[in-house]
């Protein structure tokens, strides 16, 4: 096959590209310029993006012996990921930009371009496993539970999955680093990236405040009694306990948590831990990563709501638009906008975006 390897400059995508070459594919390396990050990318007169990551990716491609290009996806990234991230927070929701990037950039803009240029698909260094089954191509968790990234890939529909290749899903991270070293890839010991790539400081709240402003609003209890003030409701997360700055203690002295964010009134509602309990979740924008389950039929499975969250035993069903989940045990703290991913054992069934909880 002719494949485009998306190379970030990290160890995973470099080894993934090298494995695809070994498997006999014709591989071309591509680094995506997503220049919305002024700390990471130079924004000079030519608007170029560069420095270490793109050089690391190019160096890895040279060592592997494949052509290497940089694709400017800054505009697509800004419109599809960054603006969405801001709009979601402004609407009182908690988005996951990595899900969005996979859905709109890596396996949409990049995959489309690759196909139109005559390539068969895109390789990334994500940790997930693809298997051809009687029912078609399906995605499973990676063998390394600490690195499993099937959650952030669960936004890919069957067409996107057909062009997606994840050569690292069967390997644990430590072995990938050892392999990188053996292959002479100088990124073997490069640390993993963790932060949101376009928030280089890691200060999510500060980054949001700079862009959405810091209008003072009220912090209230569930009965609407004002307990304090904040400067920007979107800087709070459902389930957050610290940093509320409340001077009025709860009647029973118990700690208080963020229960709700109301963007229209710029209000943060707090309450006790029990009030965070979620027993049922409804998500919209349903995407199926394989065969579509029968609608209006109850299935047993697992729900996961964070990239490295635990799988929660549940019963789920869908009506074609929304996925409804009933959890066996309550979950504490879940925000609208988070990704809801459904698993059948280790197989990714599909995903939705959390719209409401009970």
């Amino acid at each position, binding site marked *: 096959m002719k494949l485009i390897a998306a190379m970030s400059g990290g160890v995973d995508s470099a080894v993934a590209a090298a494995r695809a070459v070994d498997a006999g594919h014709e591989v*071309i390396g591509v680094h995506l*310029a997503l220049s919305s990050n002024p700390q990471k990318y*130079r924004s000079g*007169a*030519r*608007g*170029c*993006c*560069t420095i270490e990551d*793109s050089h690391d990716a*190019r160096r890895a491609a040279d060592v592997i012996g494949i*052509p*290497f*290009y*940089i*694709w*400017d996806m800054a505009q697509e990234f800004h419109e599809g990921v960054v603006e969405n991230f801001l709009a979601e927070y402004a609407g009182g929701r908690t988005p996951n930009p990595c899900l969005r990037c996979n859905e709109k950039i890596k396996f*949409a*803009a990049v995959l*489309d*371009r690759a196909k*139109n*240029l*005559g390539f068969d698909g895109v390789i990334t260094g994500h940790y997930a496993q693809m298997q051809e089954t009687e029912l078609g191509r399906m995605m499973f968790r990676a063998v390394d539970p600490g690195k499993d990234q099937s959650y952030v890939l669960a936004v890919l529909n069957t067409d996107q999955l057909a062009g997606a290749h994840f050569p690292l899903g069967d390997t644990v991270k430590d072995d990938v680093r050892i392999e990188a070293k053996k292959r002479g890839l100088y990124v073997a010991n490069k640390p993993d990236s963790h932060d949101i790539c376009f928030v280089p400081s890691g200060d999510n709240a500060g980054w949001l405040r700079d862009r959405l402003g810091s209008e003072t609003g009220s912090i209230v209890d569930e009965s609407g009694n004002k307990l304090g003030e904040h400067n920007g409701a979107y800087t709070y997360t459902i389930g957050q306990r610290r940093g509320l700055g409340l001077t009025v203690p709860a009647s029973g002295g118990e700690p208080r948590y963020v229960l709700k964010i109301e963007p229209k009134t710029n209000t943060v509602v707090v309450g006790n831990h029990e009030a965070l309990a979620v027993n049922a979740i409804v998500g919209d924008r349903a995407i199926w990563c394989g065969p579509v389950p029968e609608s209006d039929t109850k299935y047993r499975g697992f729900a996961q709501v964070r990239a490295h969250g635990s799988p929660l035993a549940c019963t789920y069903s869908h009506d074609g638009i929304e996925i409804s989940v009933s959890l066996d045990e309550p979950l504490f703290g879940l925000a609208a906008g988070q990704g809801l991913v459904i698993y059948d054992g280790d197989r990714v069934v599909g995903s939705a975006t959390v719209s409401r909880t009970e």
Partner: protein
Amino acid sequence: MTIYLDHAATAPINEVAIDAITKAMRNLGNASSVHNHGRAIRKDVEDARHALSELVGASASEVIFTGSGTEANNLAIKGFYWKAIAANPKRKVIVTSAFEHHAILDPIQWLVEHESAEQVLVPINHSGFIDLDFLKDLIANRGSEIALISVMHSNNELGTLQPIAEVVKLAGQIPVHTDAVQSFGKVDFDFAKLDLTAATISAHKVGGPLGIAALILKRGLDLVPILHGGGQEREIRSGTLNAPAIIGFSAAAIYALENRTLNFTKVRKLRDYFISELKKAVPDCTINSISDPALPGIVNVTFPGTENDAMLLLLDSEGISCSAGSACSAGVPRPSHVLVAMGLTEEQADASLRISIGVTNTQSEIDQVISVLPSVIQRARKALDVSRLA
């Protein structure tokens, strides 16, 4: 099988240069040392300088070796600016053309941002030449404020030779520098005849090694240096002389100049053949590099409805190396400022390729490129159509 059509980026090194460099690398000594080892090297370096100076129409003492054309350009721009404002703080204007190489535009921009210089860009007409009337008016109105005029001898993306003699005439007492890296060795270039104040030439564009270039600087002129140290080059440029590279530069330049007319004719013939076949193969393309006088081998062409980074990838996969003109170090193609300066839209500039033919190319190579171009362009068009719909 690969085909190299990017001679304006760098040209193949000549065998005579390789032989000269290899021989020189076996000789021990620092050209600045007074002992016999140093003297022996210095003799070879100065012979090379002398030969090179004759080829460029200068005297030996007017040749200042640098590590790259970029360094020579920086030395000229910053050196003349600092010299001018030291003598008269009102001389803050640096005049250049709108389609200069970044090795001229960026040092000027740096002086604008950090040292309150003022940049004035001479516009480019639709044929790819500077607007002399604009320059004339500018000098008439603001001549006393101008520190330096720097206009390239030939443009690296279009090949057009600029009217440097006229620029020098208009400039009067104002220093004039020209970036002649694309011209030297390919077309007539004579420093003294043009009465220039300074000029940049570079070895790797004429079949010499990488990492050696020169600023030709009129005798008796001092410039404020960028590199301070041993003062090896007229106290204007410091650093141990790179003897093997200088010797290789000279050998390559001698060879290029000896064969210049022959090479020009051969390369121009290939270019004309390429253009005529291109028009047949892709009738809706537009050739941007049609004006003369020009370098022999540059073809700049717009393929409407494409993006050059897609075309470069597809051509590369066919083993064909050419360029989009202006790629930065990160490799993201931006709309060429050269093409935009001569009146193309950003979209047209984005759809343009620079093919630069050299003396080692053959007609059968051109035929092979022509045979794959229509399918490459078709695919690139499809990619753009779909991304627009998305």
